[in-house]
């Protein structure tokens, strides 16, 4: 059955065709047709991806070479695909989760006008196409093409509801921040071209070629690639676009800003792991940036009241964990976390979409509460998602997060400590979200209460499927201490990813797992007591306060929660808005200022023009004849 690898081009081609059909025919096709085309193309791609995956698992890797894109002199940049363990797994995630989200969207977006509905699906298909190009590309240029493509689609989809001005701004911001990263990526590509005159993965990562690169080259290239990754994967300092990107429709947030696009950075670094394994300094940087992002975003998430914002910051934080893993040389763990995160974060986003849908567009969790009775399926699946992200065994998040924490421990116990702390915060804010939303009393308006209903099957089925995946998804990477040969993923990637070797005794490993699990459960219980009967703070009567006033709680509050909350406030208000945003806006403003000043040179006067020309001529003559020797 070699032949499926011969037709891998169909996998990206189908979404492209879907995009064309829906894009061109959006006025003429009915909604059901649009849905059928949109979902169908992804479904077939998914089927093919499974097939491809099985082939790859059977040991067949494949390089498909189609034609030369660019051939100048020695340099040839072919349009080629590379199908191996890494890309085939990403194919599964993208098409699988992508299909579920398409399915979900058919229901979620059905109130849109026909034309917008078609536009939405065509963008979504285009996005899948670009993302597939990104992961299937056999060289950095094809990858870059997909890389730009996803950025563009993200821009289009965030601005989908363009009637609101702020959405517009969010879209621009996402695009510009992404561009900053892309810039670094592009420069890295050019650097590679100068040094090696090739960009194909197969050729770059050969020993002979790597030997041609000096340490400085490798450091610069890996750093530039990493800057590229920070843009796409929302790391410090280029992360602020992601929370703002929540302006788009919720399924988009689930697909792009949780499951797929934001993991592109992880994919790229994992793909270049051979390069990174030669660059210890950038690895450290990656680890620290990842950890800092994980912690920062987690503290900010504590204070958010918009359901999607919490999830957005949580995504940033989880991406930080993945980068931490990359920085520790645990590429498999990072990819593993990408996979499990795709499951549970897509689940959480879609769940939040279901909630928002039920609440008639309300996103503020302070106006929710007690939804568990009305939205049973949503509640249960959301709960599963929260457990998974919090990392309680045997849910999927436990295994991947544990692998990351373990790798951090091996690199440096301090890293482990901070990472564990961030993981605890994760459990806390996720369950805060869960309890405020689903338990207690309903705090919305009567109208909303009346309107509450479980979502239709097209929305709940993806939730259920994702919930199942979120439960069992971790079993592909069971640690060796539990079960010999349980780490299927690790074996799968044995050849491809140069993971740093583990050297830790089983006892330590058990201890670490126990510690993290125990603390997480403690955090959840704490969140339960604190938020099960959440009231708006202004509505809190003195009695309520007393009732909740446990001695431990108070101590905890004073010693830990309050400072953390302060930090959360600080980070979200000052750091996020002022420093990071200020930096980005500052560049923009500088540009505008420069533009305004520079255009004054264009005075409209012929005499001035000629004068400037003559002066430049004189200067060039002086340089040529008197200064250059």
């Amino acid at each position, binding site marked *: 059955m070699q032949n499926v690898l011969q037709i891998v081009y169909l996998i990206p081609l189908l979404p492209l065709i879907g995009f064309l059909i829906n894009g061109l025919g959006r006025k003429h096709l009915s909604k059901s047709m649009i849905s059928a085309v949109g979902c169908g193309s992804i479904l077939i791609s998914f089927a093919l991806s499974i097939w491809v995956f099985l082939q790859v698992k059977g040991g067949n890797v494949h390089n498909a070479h189609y034609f030369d894109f660019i051939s100048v002199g020695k340099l040839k940049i072919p349009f080629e695909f590379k199908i191996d363990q890494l890309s085939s797994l990403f194919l599964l995630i993208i098409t699988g989760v992508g299909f579920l989200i398409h399915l979900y969207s058919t229901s979620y977006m059905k109130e849109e006008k026909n034309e917008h509905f078609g536009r939405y699906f065509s963008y979504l298909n285009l996005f899948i196409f670009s993302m597939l190009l990104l992961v299937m590309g056999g060289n950095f240029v094809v990858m870059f093409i997909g890389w730009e493509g996803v950025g563009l689609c993200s821009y289009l989809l965030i601005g989908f509801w363009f009637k609101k001005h702020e959405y517009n701004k969010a879209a621009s911001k996402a695009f510009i921040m992404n561009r900053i990263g892309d810039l670094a990526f592009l420069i890295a590509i050019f650097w590679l071209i100068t040094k090696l005159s090739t960009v194909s993965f197969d050729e770059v990562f050969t020993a002979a070629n790597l030997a041609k690169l000096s340490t400085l080259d490798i450091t610069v290239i890996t750093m530039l690639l990493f800057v590229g990754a920070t843009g796409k994967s929302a790391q410090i300092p280029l992360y602020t676009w992601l929370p703002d990107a929540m302006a788009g429709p919720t399924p988009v947030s689930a697909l792009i800003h949780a499951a797929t696009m934001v993991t592109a950075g992880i994919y790229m670094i994992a793909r270049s792991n051979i390069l990174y394994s030669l660059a210890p300094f950038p690895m450290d940087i990656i680890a620290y940036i990842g950890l800092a992002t994980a912690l920062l975003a987690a503290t900010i998430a504590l204070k958010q009241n918009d359901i999607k914002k919490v999830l957005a910051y949580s995504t940033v934080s989880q991406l930080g964990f993945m980068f931490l893993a990359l920085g520790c040389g645990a590429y498999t763990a990072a990819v593993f976390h990408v996979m499990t995160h795709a499951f549970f974060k897509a689940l959480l986003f879609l769940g939040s979409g279901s909630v928002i849908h039920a609440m008639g567009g309300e996103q503020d969790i302070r106006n929710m509460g007690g939804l568990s009775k009305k939205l049973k399926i949503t509640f249960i699946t959301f709960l599963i998602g929260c457990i998974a992200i919090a990392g309680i065994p045997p849910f999927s998040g436990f295994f991947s997060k544990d692998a990351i924490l373990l790798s951090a421990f091996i690199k440096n116990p301090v890293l482990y400590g901070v990472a564990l702390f961030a993981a605890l915060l994760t459990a806390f804010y996720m369950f805060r979200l869960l309890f405020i939303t689903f338990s207690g009393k309903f705090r919305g308006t009567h109208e909303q209460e009346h309107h509450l209903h479980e979502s239709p099957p097209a929305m709940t089925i993806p939730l259920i499927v994702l919930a199942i995946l979120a439960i069992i998804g971790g079993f592909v990477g069971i640690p060796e201490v539990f079960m010999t040969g349980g780490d299927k993923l690790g074996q799968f990637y044995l050849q491809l990813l140069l993971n740093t070797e583990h050297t830790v005794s089983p006892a330590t490993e058990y201890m670490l797992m126990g510690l993290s699990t125990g603390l997480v459960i403690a955090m959840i219980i704490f969140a339960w007591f604190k938020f099960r009967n959440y009231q708006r703070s202004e509505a809190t009567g003195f009695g309520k306060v007393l009732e909740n006033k446990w001695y431990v709680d108070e101590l905890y509050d004073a010693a830990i929660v309050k400072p953390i909350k302060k930090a959360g406030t600080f980070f979200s208000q000052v750091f996020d808005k002022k420093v990071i945003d200020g930096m980005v806006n500052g560049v923009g403003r500088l540009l505008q200022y420069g533009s305004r000043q520079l255009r004054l040179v*264009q*005075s*409209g*006067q*012929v*005499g001035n023009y*000629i004068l400037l020309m*003559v002066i430049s001529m004189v200067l060039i003559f002086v340089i040529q004849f008197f200064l250059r020797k």
Partner: protein
Amino acid sequence: MPINYYIFLSLALFCIGIVGVLTRRNAIIIFMCIELMLNAVNLLLVAFSKMHHNAALLAGDATTTAGTDGQLFVFFIMVVAAAEVSVGLAIIVMMYRNIHSVDVNFLNRLKH
């Protein structure tokens, strides 16, 4: 005559033309200064033409026509200049019809 004299003479005329372009405001005069620049070039070309001719003669080729191309180039420059003048004056007249001035400082609707 030493060729340097001709080079300096025509550079001087050329730069006088440039100074004129830079210091005057009347479009017609600016245009005339440009014509002056072209004439400086013509003079230089003819001088060079004769210089190359001389060099070829000194090299012993008694029937040489070396340097002819330089003079023909001058001819072509005159052709182009004549065409340019007809168009240029037409444009200036059109401008004058509209704003009743040929002052280039009034050309400032288009800027920034």
